[in-house]
């Protein structure tokens, strides 16, 4: 199997992999990477093998977490496109209330995610630490190491000039991106391996994060429409590309949480 097909298989939702992963791996060949990537995207939108409420809740928590990580990266990319340097009229006129909504939803989403996520993480990590359940703890180690490296790197960023400074910033950005990726994947794998039964409350918190993601996506899409004639072709692509990611992530979260909140 090609590396692309391997990667695509790894991108399927955990519950889906658990149910169909072996069969899919048996059938997948070298030229199936693109088909598997599309299949993985569809599987996130239509999580099969999750008929029980418990499985749907776990799937929704995982989906919202991964989606919010995508929202975070897309939000930063959008910010870079419109605010570095600031576009004329970014914080005035029709753009001003949208800017305020985008900021509010971004920070509120992070607040809710930390509130719900920390509780779940502690419920997974503490029991696993007590009985030294390494298969559960191991997926979270890369994110923890990267977090220390990224935080530790902040004071070093301003110390160097010229080429060394540019290299330091690039390395730090690469570590930051790796942190987002591992921070997205690690807790999801740990949650699945822990077999933790997710109560209704974390799903309600995830629904709150989803509402914030929808608000952020709507505000940035509307603002991008207002600002669209003020950006050059390069920033136009970056701005609308990040809006597409934001909308897709918000839609994916909404579908998944909607299924999890259904009673039957």
């Amino acid at each position, binding site marked *: 199997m090609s590396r692309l097909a391997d990667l*695509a298989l790894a991108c399927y939702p955990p519950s889906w992999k658990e149910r169909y992963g072996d069969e899919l791996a048996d059938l997948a060949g070298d030229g199936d990477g693109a*088909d598997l990537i599309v299949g993985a995207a569809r599987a996130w939108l239509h999580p099969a*093998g999750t*008929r029980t409420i418990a499985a749907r809740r776990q799937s929704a928590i995982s989906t919202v977490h991964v989606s919010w990580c995508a929202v975070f990266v897309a939000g930063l990319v959008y910010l870079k496109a419109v605010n570095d340097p600031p576009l004329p009229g970014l914080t005035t006129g029709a753009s001003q209330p949208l800017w305020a909504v985008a900021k509010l939803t971004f920070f509120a989403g992070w607040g809710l995610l930390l509130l719900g996520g920390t509780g779940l993480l502690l419920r997974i990590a503490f029991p696993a630490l007590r009985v030294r359940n390494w298969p559960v703890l191991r997926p979270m180690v890369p994110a923890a190491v990267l977090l220390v490296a990224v935080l530790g790197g902040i004071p070093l960023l301003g110390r160097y000039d010229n080429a060394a400074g540019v290299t330091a910033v690039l390395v730090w950005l690469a570590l930051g991106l790796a942190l987002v990726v591992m921070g997205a994947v690690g807790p999801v794998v740990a949650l699945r391996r822990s077999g933790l039964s997710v109560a209704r409350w974390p799903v309600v918190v995830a629904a709150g994060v989803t509402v914030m993601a929808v608000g952020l996506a709507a505000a940035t899409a509307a603002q991008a429409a207002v600002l669209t004639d003020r950006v050059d072709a390069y920033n136009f692509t970056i701005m609308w590309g990040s809006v597409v990611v934001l909308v897709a992530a918000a839609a994916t979260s909404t579908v998944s949480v909607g299924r999890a909140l259904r009673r039957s």
Partner: protein
Amino acid sequence: MARSSSRWADPGLLVLGSLADGEKHGYAIAEDIEQRTGRRPGPGTLYGAIARLEQDGLITALEGDARRRPYRLSGDGARVLQAELSGMRAFANHGLRGLRGRMATS
């Protein structure tokens, strides 16, 4: 055989049709669809359809090797397939009648 056209594009219907004559695992379903339509569904497409059909109760997974689990058409699946194929047959008959009339007058 001619290459498949868009009417054969629904993987779910193709899977149901393939299971009409008995239980099969994923690989056998893919082979069967390729033989009948000239186009082999990719594994992502095939298992996306299998997952949806199983969730809707139209097919049932049987006990077997985890890597080659066989599937069987359920009662509901058979009814859905019957209705879909009857609709397609009625549409095909209508189109063929029209074509015959057109050829007769030209």
